[in-house]
């Protein structure tokens, strides 16, 4: 394992300190916690938005803390949901009476920890609502199982809910637009290499020199299908077609596109994928309102990418365009 760290056990702590050191005027770390909050939290008369999850997905989640996006991000250990007490600290720090929305990615661990935090907050009289992002179409949607994972599409939920809250909307309104975003966002990823959790020291799976994995998550979990590596165009088509089909996108509709790098893939390759995604959508008469290419939701140093499409209407477009001062999503 080759990593620029001091100690696997201090990696998350060191990262959080280094993050605050980079943006000292914009964010603060709540003392003794793994919570990064807006420096000016709690903001008066504004619904607070709290997200978070395991670490190793940088710039998620702290990178999305800022005016127009999240009020706080709670970091767990690498790929491990943060604990209820930490999430509770985040909620308390951002609530100013208008209530708090929790944006949770659909993983059993995240849901249980955030739910327990919500129970603690409600016990203190804080009004808390939750939305659960489950944009990953790799996993079949079945009510018998855990359902779908939340991956890169979560960033759009942060953005849109954050913009709505910044407008002064009520907790119910912010929750409603977050739900609407979740209804209209889908993603799928693929990987060329696994990644190494610092404290584990070994890769989570092995891929041969000619293999790739489709439907990968963002925690070094194996994907749903392993096959021979193919061209960027074929990869782009496979991912995008799956997302289009699941969203039921039709000619004439408008979308935002995100081509997200998983951590170890050069930007050059993301743009090569974007070329084909763009072509495919244009060929189908689907209008691309805006495109985001880069690293938004990573899986440590995994080489690979995901494609996310968000179906837009006028409300979502306006909220997507609204100002954001989050370090990883400046608008």
């Amino acid at each position, binding site marked *: 394992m080759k990593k620029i760290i001091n100690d696997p056990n201090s990696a998350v702590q060191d990262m959080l300190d280094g993050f605050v050191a980079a943006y000292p005027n914009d964010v603060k770390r709540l003392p003794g916690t793994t919570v990064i909050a807006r420096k000016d939290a709690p903001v008066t008369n504004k619904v607070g938005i709290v997200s978070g999850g*395991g670490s190793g997905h940088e710039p998620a989640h702290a990178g999305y803390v800022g005016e127009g996006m999240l009020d706080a991000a709670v970091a*767990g*250990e*690498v*790929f*491990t*949901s*943060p*604990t*209820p*007490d*930490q999430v509770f600290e985040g909620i308390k720090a951002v609530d100013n009476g208008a209530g708090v929305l929790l944006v949770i990615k659909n*993983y*059993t*661990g995240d849901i*249980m*920890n955030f739910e*327990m935090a919500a129970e603690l907050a409600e016990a203190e009289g804080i009004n808390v609502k939750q939305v659960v992002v489950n944009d990953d179409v*790799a*996993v*079949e949607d079945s009510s*018998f*199982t*855990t359902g779908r*994972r939340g991956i890169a599409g979560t960033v759009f939920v942060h953005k849109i809910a954050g913009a709505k809250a910044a407008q002064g909307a009520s907790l119910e309104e912010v929750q409603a637009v977050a739900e609407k975003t979740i209804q209209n966002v889908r993603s799928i990823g693929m990987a060329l290499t696994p990644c190494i*959790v610092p*404290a*584990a020291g*070994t*890769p*989570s*799976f092995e891929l041969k020199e000619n293999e790739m994995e489709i439907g990968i*998550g963002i*925690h*070094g*979990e*194996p994907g*749903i299908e392993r096959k021979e590596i193919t061209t960027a165009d074929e990869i782009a088509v496979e991912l995008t077609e799956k997302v289009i089909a699941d969203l039921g996108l039709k000619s004439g509709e408008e979308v935002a596109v995100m081509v997200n790098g998983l951590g170890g893939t050069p930007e050059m390759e993301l743009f090569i994928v974007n070329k084909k995604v763009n072509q495919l959508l244009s060929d189908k008469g689907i209008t691309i309102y805006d495109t985001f290419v880069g690293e938004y939701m990573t899986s440590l140093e995994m080489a690979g990418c995901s494609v996310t499409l968000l179906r837009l209407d006028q409300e979502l477009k306006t909220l997507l365009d609204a100002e954001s001062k989050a370090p990883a999503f400046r608008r």
Partner: protein
Amino acid sequence: MKLDVAHILDWMEKANDKIQQNKTYLTSLDQAIGDGDHGINMARGFQEVIGKISASDYSNVSDLLKDISMTLLSKVGGASGPLYGTAFLKMSMALKDSDSVDYPQFVHAMEEALQGIKQRGKAEKGEKTLVDVWETLLEQLKEQDDFDSVRFEETAKLAMESTKELEAKKGRAAYLRERSIGHLDPGSVSSYYIFSSLSDVVKESV
């Protein structure tokens, strides 16, 4: 059976030893069908439990179990943290003010713990989670009227091993669908360590 504070302290020591020794193994099980952190999470959490409970004095098992629960809740994270945290919390509540635990009390506490786990995780037996170990054990406990260390350990082991052939329906492994078959459930293995430690404690205390 009769479990007092010293027994529970001993139980945690033994469980921690097993988990620390098998940290890498638990993690490798989770790498196969999860995200590779279960051993790390459990080792961190139980280390903290030992730190916490060895620095305090307890006059009854309920307070001790509560501290165990709170430490697991705030130090493990992931799916296993809330589940184990909830289990020990429910045990603590079931044993309110008891300074020791007899067999019916123990069965009752296990029953409450299992219910807590199932409510929190929304999982049923057979879905390849630690519920498979806890529920199988509870069924066996209910069939008897005193603790049988050997049988308890064997039952836990068999239940743990039985998860290998199951397809996961809950937790991270569920994303793999049929590819989850053929691998042990990491949480069931850590539960097995916890219960085999309890079996050892009872065996030695007889």
